């Protein structure tokens, strides 16, 4: 039957013995896209918090952009999950009758908390005065949208603006552990499955979190440089250099954690070591050693260490700004590739070997359909479209920020 054609193909690619029900690989491309997207959210937000809470002045140009990026990606994040469900129309059950023992159910609330209390409130407090001022001087649909978003707020007094600032700071402070929780929790959803020795690990939530930070910072680098080009504005080199140094440190921590997991596994050499070694030296070789470790970690680390002022005020091998920018482009893209491979290696890798520990199967991704490759590609591009809309709706550029004089004028 055509419905099962891809499964019949998998039958021919089985090595060793797998349980008969394991021919169908259940969590495919869509479930790889999901942690990739939530990782970017957590990473972008933590970057934004660097400016707000730790007063890292150099990355100020990216602050509002990072918030909008986090929001755009967070809106898309549940869509791959919805598309993957057998019954998306019943998805609301997770909120109506959540099973408190289930990590997946509790994640629904972590997500809702993060979206409502952290991101939406943060954006509202940060843009509130702009929304009021803009809605008074604009016309047409922008005026109505901005007015709607003020939620009826009209107070432009100094006290109110100061309250906005304090509230934003408090929310960001709450937001940092919330961002940790958001993506660490996704790691826990995998890490708590004792049936799967590739997933079941205490380190998975931490590794997920740091790789999320890495991917988020790299993404912001890309978006900042891309939007600067599109707006024909010069790239602030001190900003991207600072982003690069945070990226470098996050990458060091990330790779240390991954190495720790790897060494620990090899050293303890538990029962699953045989089939897992077979898997990573065979089916997962390219995505693990070439993409995740080689191109996604070692090449960026070496490039940043050599050509970027991450260790000292001057780089070890100083290069002109233009070259460094190109290097940053390359590094950021490779990191996206590397982190996406990381998610692939965890999600798909965990299902390529049998729970009998005696065999390996294959993943046949379909192109069409709600769970196909095209859908995944669409969901990876959608956040950028939403970001473009958000940038139009809430311009994050420093020159569009409302000054205190404009606020005073609007008060009258």
């Amino acid at each position, binding site marked *: *039957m055509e*419905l*099962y054609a891809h*499964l019949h193909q998998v*039958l021919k690619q089985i090595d*060793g*013995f*797998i*349980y*008969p*029900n*394991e*021919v*169908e690989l*259940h*969590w495919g491309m869509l479930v790889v896209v999901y942690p990739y997207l939530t990782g970017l959210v957590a990473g972008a937000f933590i970057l934004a918090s660097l400016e707000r809470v730790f007063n890292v002045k150099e990355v100020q140009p990216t602050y509002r952009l990072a918030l909008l990026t986090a929001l755009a990606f967070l809106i898309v994040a549940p869509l791959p*999950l919805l598309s*993957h*469900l*057998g*019954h*998306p129309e*019943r*998805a609301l*059950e*997770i909120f109506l*009758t*959540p*099973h408190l*023992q*289930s*990590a*997946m*159910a509790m994640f*629904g609330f972590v997500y809702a908390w993060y979206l409502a209390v952290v991101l939406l409130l943060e954006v509202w407090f940060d843009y509130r005065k702009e929304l009021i001022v803009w809605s008074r001087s604009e016309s047409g649909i922008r005026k109505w949208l901005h007015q709607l978003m003020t939620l009826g707020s009209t107070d432009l007094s100094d006290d109110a603006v100061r309250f906005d600032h304090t509230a934003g700071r408090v929310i960001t402070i709450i937001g940092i552990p919330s961002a940790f929780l958001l993506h660490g929790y996704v790691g826990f*959803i995998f890490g*708590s*499955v*004792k*049936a*799967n020795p590739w997933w079941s690990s205490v380190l998975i939530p931490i590794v997920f979190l740091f790789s999320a930070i890495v991917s988020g910072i790299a993404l912001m680098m890309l978006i900042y440089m891309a939007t600067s080009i599109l707006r024909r504005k010069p790239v602030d080199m001190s900003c991207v250099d600072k982003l690069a140094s945070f990226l470098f440190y996050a990458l060091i921590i990330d790779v240390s954690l991954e190495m720790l997991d790897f060494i620990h596994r090899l050293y303890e050499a538990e029962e699953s070591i045989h089939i897992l070694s077979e898997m990573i030296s065979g089916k997962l070789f390219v995505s693990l050693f070439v993409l995740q470790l080689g191109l996604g970690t070692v090449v960026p680390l070496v490039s940043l260490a050599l050509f970027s002022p991450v260790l000292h005020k001057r780089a070890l091998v100083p290069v002109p700004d233009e070259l460094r920018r190109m290097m940053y482009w390359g590094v950021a893209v490779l990191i996206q590739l590397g982190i996406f491979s990381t998610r692939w290696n965890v999600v798909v890798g965990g*299902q390529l070997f*049998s*729970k*009998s*520990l*005696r065999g390996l199967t294959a993943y046949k991704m379909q192109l069409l359909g709600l769970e196909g490759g095209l859908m995944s590609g669409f969901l990876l591009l959608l956040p950028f479209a939403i970001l473009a809309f958000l940038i139009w709706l809430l311009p994050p550029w420093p020159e569009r920020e409302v000054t205190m004089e404009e606020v005073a004028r609007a008060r009258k």
Partner: protein
Amino acid sequence: MQRIDASVDTSTKRLDRRSFLARCVAATVAGGPALLDILPVDASEEEQSQPRYGMAVDIDSCIGCGRCVDACKAENGVPLEPFFYRTWVERYRVREDGVEVDSPDGGRQGFPSADAEQGQSQSQSQRSFFVPKLCNHCDNAPCVQVCPVGATFTSEDGVVLVDHEYCIGCRYCIQACPYGARYLDPVTRTAQKCTLCYHRIKRGLQPACVEVCPTEARIFGDLNKRSSPLARFFRFHKVQVLKPHLNTAPKVFYSGLDGNVS
């Protein structure tokens, strides 16, 4: 004749009586519960009437004919394609240089006969046997733990079931099952697995796989009843469960389980 001096140590007597009484109280407090254990006490009505279903598998009796797999698919409407099984049979061939495991179409049409395997060079075989597998209806089921909406649950009589009108098809339970007992039903697009033929056992019948097994390798019964065939089986067989280190507390017990069974 000795004169008994009644005046001597009357205090001791009283102390003796007091200490004797104290000891009585202590004994009752300490030994009372033990006494209660000896006395016949009726279990509460509820405990006795609620069954707790389980199953036993006698590996030494299984001949790998696959009738159980076939009957299960027929009884429960499981698609015949070789990707969906509520129960299946594995064959283990232990050789000097390793173990070979296979389960062609879950064993549903038996296993290839010895004739068909001529010419396969193998090292010296030590022993080989069949192992029927099914959902273990764990008392501490990881699949029930991870279901986000409460669509899979353990019934009051110990059977792990799936609610097809509530399941959202997220497949977390399929990932969480260490035994590979679950699959996604392609028609209802919900998680699916062995139900111990709940619709049969509630009407006093045996599960389909137990009904058709020609060598009585599968035994079904009520773990709470001393009169069930399971109780007799446990008296005569040393039993094990699959993957005990995961602490899932399975209710399917295997006799004759080889260490190589995974």
